[in-house]
């Protein structure tokens, strides 16, 4: 089979438009969710309820008990990270430091999450 002759029918002109629109949509989501201003506070939740709401100005470590064990969270230099977590995949630990408003690290198995918020929580279109 001749791939050069075949390719245009597999990928038609409108398909390229859809793919390009898809890239635009991904970029807009990225800009909207990942380039927010630097946050002021971290809200740590355990099983859906607020465990701690603290300023990022002062460095500290905190241990959050969950159903699997202790999730340790570190705050330093206006950033926060999960130091250790008993979950099997370690996704929230590998995520590293977070500092922008709206950024979250979720340790799903241990039901612990932390989110960076501003002094006043910003509203986006989803909140309306």
């Amino acid at each position, binding site marked *: 089979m001749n791939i050069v002759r075949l390719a245009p029918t597999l990928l038609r002109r409108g398909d390229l438009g859809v793919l390009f629109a898809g890239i635009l*949509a991904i970029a807009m989501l990225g800009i909207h969710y990942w380039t927010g201003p630097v946050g002021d506070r971290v809200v740590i939740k355990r099983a859906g309820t607020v465990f701690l709401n603290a300023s990022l100005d002062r460095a500290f470590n905190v241990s959050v008990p969950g159903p699997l064990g202790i999730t340790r969270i570190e705050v330093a230099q206006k950033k926060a990270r999960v130091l250790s977590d008993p979950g099997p995949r370690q996704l929230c630990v590998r995520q590293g430091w977070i500092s922008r408003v709206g*950024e979250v690290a979720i340790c799903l198995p241990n039901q612990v999450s932390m989110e960076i918020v501003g002094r006043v929580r910003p509203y986006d279109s*989803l909140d309306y």
Partner: protein
Amino acid sequence: MWDGCGHMTVLTINSTAEDHKLAYLAALAISLMWVEAAIPSPLPGVKPGLANIVTLLVLRQYGLRTAFWVAGLRVVAGSILLGSFLTPGFVMSLGGAMASLAVLSLAQYLPQRYFGAVSLSVLAAFAHIAAQLAIVSAWLMPDVNVFYLSPVFAAAAWVFGLSNGLIAAQLLQRSSHESAA
């Protein structure tokens, strides 16, 4: 059924050729879903969704009604096979499939001269992940900003939508060549 002498006889369900075709296509989709469940995923919820190739082929060759049946059977019977029936995973699977079909029911009217299987596949993949994020946000994790991860999920939908669409386009082309020959 009554045999006319007042005795009960064997009740048979008459299955049509249409039923056999549906069952065959659903079984094909379920086996793809099942194979895929064995592949480890880097992030929960990120999967190629190979069974959607079957949905696309069925949509193009037999129409929306058959695609709806095949996808519905796949979600229900597949989840029973995988042991996830009526779990949150099943609800997400069902929600994703229904959102995909809703988008496909509109997108199938795009002129086929310009919009091939890749367009359908990418649009359906975006609808799929949007519905699943909405379900997680509204029902499973209402207190967590799950949309923060939406660019990652959207990018995965784009990649797998493209690859599944190319596979479907290739298969459709081959089958149209065969029927022409």
